[in-house]
C-alpha cells in the first residue's frame, strides 16, 4: 500500500500557496469583470469570431510547420555531431528569451518588403508576408517552434539508441524504425511539445503586431483583439480574454490527463 502520508512542512505549504496565488489572483480579477449577461451577444460579434477563427487557423498552421521542420531540426541537434551545435541550440532557444517585439522587429528586417530575404522574395514571387495572414503564421512559428524542438531534442537524446539498433538489426527499414520505435518512445514528449507550441502560438501578441500588423479578419488574432478592445470596449476585451482562458485551459488540462505525463 502507499507510504504513510507525511505532514506537509508548513513553510513549504505557505510559500507554495503564494506561488499559486500569483497564478490564480489575476484570473479571479478577470472573472470578476466578466459581463455574464451580455456574454453571448458580445461573443457573437464578428470582431470576436473573426479573431477566434484567425487565432485557431494560424496557431494550428504554426504547429504544423513546427512538426514538418522542427522535428527534423530536433533530430539533427540530438543525433548529429557537428561544429557549432551548441550555438545552434542557443539560436533555437533565443525566441524563448527575447521579447516577442524584438522577434517581430527582426522578422520585419529579414522578411519585410525591404528586408534581407523579403525584398528578393517579393521581387521573385510577389509574396509579401507583413500585413498578411501568412505573416501571422510566420510570427507564431518563430515564437512557438522552440518549444517543440527543445522537447523533442531532449527526448531523442535520452532515448536509448539500442532499441532502434535492435529493430534495425531485425530487418526494420529506417522509416519503420522511426514509425514503430522512435516516435512511440518519444510520444509523450512529442505531444507535450506540440501542446506547448500550439499554446504559445495561440497566445502570441508582440511578434504578430510588430511583424504582421493588425487588421480584423486578416491579421487581428485574439490577443490583438483583446489589446484593441481593452482601449475601447472593456466588456468585449474581458469576454475575449475569457474565451482564451477557457480554450487554453481546456486543451492544457484535457491533454494533460490523456497524454501529457512526460512533463
Amino acid at each position, binding site marked *: 500500500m502507499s507510504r504513510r502520508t507525511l505532514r506537509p512542512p508548513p513553510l513549504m505549504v505557505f510559500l507554495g500557496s503564494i506561488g499559486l496565488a500569483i497564478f490564480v489572483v489575476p484570473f479571479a480579477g478577470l472573472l470578476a469583470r466578466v459581463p455574464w449577461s451580455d456574454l453571448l451577444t458580445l461573443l457573437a460579434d464578428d470582431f470576436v469570431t473573426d479573431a477566434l477563427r484567425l487565432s485557431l487557423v494560424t496557431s494550428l498552421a504554426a504547429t504544423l510547420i513546427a512538426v514538418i521542420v522542427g522535428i527534423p531540426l530536433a533530430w539533427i541537434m540530438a543525433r548529429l555531431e557537428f561544429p557549432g551545435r551548441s550555438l545552434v541550440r542557443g539560436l533555437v532557444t533565443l525566441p524563448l528569451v527575447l521579447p516577442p517585439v524584438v522577434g517581430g522587429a527582426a522578422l*520585419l*528586417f529579414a522578411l*519585410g*518588403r*525591404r528586408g534581407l530575404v523579403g525584398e528578393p522574395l517579393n521581387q521573385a514571387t510577389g509574396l*509579401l508576408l*507583413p*500585413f498578411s495572414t501568412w505573416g501571422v503564421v510566420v510570427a507564431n512559428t518563430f515564437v512557438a517552434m522552440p518549444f517543440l524542438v527543445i522537447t523533442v531534442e531532449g527526448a531523442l537524446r535520452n532515448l536509448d539508441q539500442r532499441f532502434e539498433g535492435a529493430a534495425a538489426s531485425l530487418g526494420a527499414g529506417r522509416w519503420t524504425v522511426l514509425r514503430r520505435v522512435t516516435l512511440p518512445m518519444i510520444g509523450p514528449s512529442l505531444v507535450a511539445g506540440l501542446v506547448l507550441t500550439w499554446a504559445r502560438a495561440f497566445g502570441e501578441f508582440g511578434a504578430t*503586431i*510588430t511583424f504582421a*500588423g*493588425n*487588421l480584423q479578419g486578416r*491579421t*487581428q488574432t485574439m490577443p490583438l483583439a483583446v*489589446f*484593441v478592445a*481593452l*482601449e*475601447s470596449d472593456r466588456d468585449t476585451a474581458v469576454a475575449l480574454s475569457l474565451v482564451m482562458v477557457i480554450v487554453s485551459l481546456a486543451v492544457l488540462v484535457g491533454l494533460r490527463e490523456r497524454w501529457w505525463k512526460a512533463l
Partner: protein
Amino acid sequence: MRTARLIVTTCVLGMVIACSGSSVNGELLVSAAASLTDAFGEVESAFEEENRDVDVVLNLGSSTALREQILEGAPADVFASANTSNMDQVVEAGEAAGEPEIFVTNRLQIAVPAGNPGGVSGLEDFAREELLIGLCGENVPCGDFGRQALENAGVTPSLDTNEPDVRALLTKIENDELDAGIVYVTDVLSSPPGEVEGIDIPTEVNVVAEYPIAVLASAPNPDAAAAWIEFVLSEGGQAILTSYGFTSP
C-alpha cells in the same frame, strides 16, 4: 558681447526658476502621448536642469492606453493627452486635479517613405488597393483624427493595418513596409532625416488635435506635477515644443 548678454540672461532666468521651483523634488511620473516622445524628452532635460532634485520619468504610449492605465489606478502625476476625449474621460472619472489646459495643438500630415515609392500625392491615394496603407487604431487619437480627415475628404481607405500608436505606424513607414499613413506633422519632423516625407493635407479637410494636460488627482508628487505643467506652459517650454512642430494654443 552677445554671448555675455546671453549668459547674464540665462543666469537671471536660472535664478528665477531655481527660486520658484526649489521646493519640488522626488520622482515625477509623466504619462504622455506617444507623439510627444521627442519634444517631452527635451522638455524633461530642460526641466531637470532647473529642478535638479526632480527625476522625471516619462511614460509614453497611446493616449488611450495611458487613459486606461490611469483609470485602472496606475500611479502617475501628470497626464498629457493627444486628444480631449481621453482627458475628458479621466476628468469624468474624477482622476484629474483641477481643469486640464490645452498646451499645444498639432496637425495631421500624410507620411510616406523617402522617395515616395507608392507615388502618393494626397488622401485620395489611400483608396488604392495595391498600396500598403496604415493608420493608427481607431481608438487611438491619431487613428481617430486620421479617419476624420479621410471622411472629410470623402475617401474610404484600403487599409492594411491598424497600428497601436503613432510611433509604431511611423516606424513601419520609415522602414518602407507601408506606402502611406496619416501621422502628425510633428512625427514627420522628428523622424530621422531622409527616411520619411510629409505630404500636406489641405486645411479644409485637416483636423487640429488639441493636447490637454492635467495634474492627476492621485498624483504621488503633486507639487512637482504642477511645476512641470507650469514649465510646459512657460515661454521656455513652449519654445521647445514649437521647435518640434507643435503650435502654441
